[in-house]
């Protein structure tokens, strides 16, 4: 999969530190963008590329931890490496629990930061890849007709064509036709592929395949 070059975002209110980080990150051949406040970063339209956020805990206005919370609320998923001039244990525990990659006390060893940035970017890459695949599955699922979806649900539950035909009061041949169509539309080569896709969709939650089947048997499939 071809990707954009990763970008490291730096949010620190101190111009000297910002400048230094800018140079360091460029020296390890990564793109870098710096911001002096959390707001500035939030207003910036991020390009579609894997990234990592290097964040000072003590920012004027919104502090780093609140900012982390804010990002999570607005569904901006970006691995965060915290840097702090006087971080205490409580702070670092909170940050790590909320999903931070690392928590480094200033002045830190540059290698620690570089490592943390790489870990962050890798995390983001993996996440983006999974997300892309999931989006594709969702897109394919959206192409299915209501009946095909019903059939798919039964198939991934392990029901036989005969059972499915009986349940929907259609012929076994029709079930086979639906099944062939949906396998084609979902680009599933084997039954195992299809089951895995069904799992992914159900894990996502908001697709709600099973729920849909019980509650609204005849309505068109809903939100994706």
């Amino acid at each position, binding site marked *: 999969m071809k990707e954009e070059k990763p970008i490291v975002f730096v949010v620190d209110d101190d111009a000297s530190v910002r400048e*230094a980080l800018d140079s360091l990150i460029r*020296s390890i051949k990564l793109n870098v963008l710096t911001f002096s406040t959390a707001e500035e970063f939030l207003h910036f339209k991020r390009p579609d590329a894997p990234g990592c956020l290097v964040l000072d805990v003590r920012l004027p206005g919104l502090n780093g931890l609140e900012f982390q919370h804010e990002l999570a609320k607005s569904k901006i998923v970006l691995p965060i490496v915290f840097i702090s001039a006087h971080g205490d244990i409580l702070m670092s525990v909170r940050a790590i629990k909320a999903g931070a990659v690392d928590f480094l006390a200033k002045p830190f060893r540059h290698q620690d930061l570089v490592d943390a940035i790489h870990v962050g970017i890798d995390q983001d890459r993996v996440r983006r890849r999974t997300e892309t695949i999931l989006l594709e599955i969702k897109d394919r699922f959206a192409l299915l007709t209501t009946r095909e979806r019903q059939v798919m649900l039964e198939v991934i539950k392990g029901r036989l064509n005969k059972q499915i035909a009986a349940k929907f009061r259609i012929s076994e041949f029709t079930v086979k036709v639906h099944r062939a169509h949906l396998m084609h539309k979902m680009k599933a080569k084997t039954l195992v592929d299809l089951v895995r896709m069904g799992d992914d969709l159900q894990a996502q939650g908001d697709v709600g395949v099973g729920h849909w089947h019980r509650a609204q048997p005849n309505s068109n499939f809903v939100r994706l």
Partner: protein
Amino acid sequence: MVSQDFRVTAVWALPFAAIALATTVFIADTITELEIACPVFYTAVVLIAARFCKKRGVVFVGLACITLTLLSDLLTIEVAPSQAGVINTCISLAAIAATTYLALKIEVEKEATYEARSQLAHVARVTTLGGMTANIAHEVNQPLTAVLINGNACLHWLDAEPPDLNEARKNITNIVRDTNRASQIVVQIRDLTKGQPPVSEWLRVNEIILATTVLIDREIRQNQISIQTQLSDNVPPINGDRVQLQQVLLNLLLNSIESLRSVAVGSRRLVIASAKSNSKSVLISVHDTGKGISSSDLDCLFDPFYTTKSDGMGIGLTISRSIVESHGGRIWATPNSPRGAVFQFTLPIDVRSDRSINKNGFRWENSSHKIGQDRAIADVHLNSQLNAP
């Protein structure tokens, strides 16, 4: 301001007054008979001398007066000395000696008080800085972090194939800049904690203001205060103690910052201004848009142990006033419009005022301050600036 000018002039005129009085007494003593106890008036000379001399000077003046008495006695001796005359002379000499002794004692007491108060000021200063430790540590740590990162980045650029000398040079330039920044902070702190006796030196008010703002930089940014320095270019140098004046400013600024914390973020404004208020003094003012001072507090703001803060000691402003007054200036507070407070103080430009700095020491009496002409000028001058968008 009138009273202050008078005081400065008076201090300067005192030696002349003493010499004139001594001469008059000497002439009167010489031309009158021995029985008339003119030399008693030398005590006045000693008392005047005590106003402007240090210990040694007072002793010298006392001895000089005794010598003059004896000299004029020698000159008048041709008339046969009467017993009363001799007794009167002895009484006069005793009076001069006793006055000199008392004047010396007062001088010693004054010095002890002065010493104690300068130590108290030092303690207050260290306490203030103690409260700022976390911020100061952060303030020093920040440039150090930048230096460290720049150093590593520089190594990366040099190790690259081919080495990027331009980037490396930029790193090193930044290292120099950040190291200077860190050491500047360290120097400021060291000066403020040294606890040396106050010295009188030529100072540039604007430099003092800028040096002090270095220390509160973090507080300003952390509390999202918009700070403005309006430093007039034509402020003449003044004579005084750098550390003490910085202490006054630091105290006023920290008070303002604390008061600004209680108002909404967008409307936190702080203005530090310097100006030549008239031909005699420099005016330094700190304007904030904080919660302000109630009119009942305004009267006793500078009183010892009077505080409006829950964790305050009530000595910051008292010490500030002592320092300003010992420099021959005045300090006062007014409400700011539409909101907040203005603290201003004047420092005399006059070269001669330096003599009065250490002599007068600290003053603690609770005097109400007359609002001078300079204040009116300053209010007009600065309110327009603060209300500007």
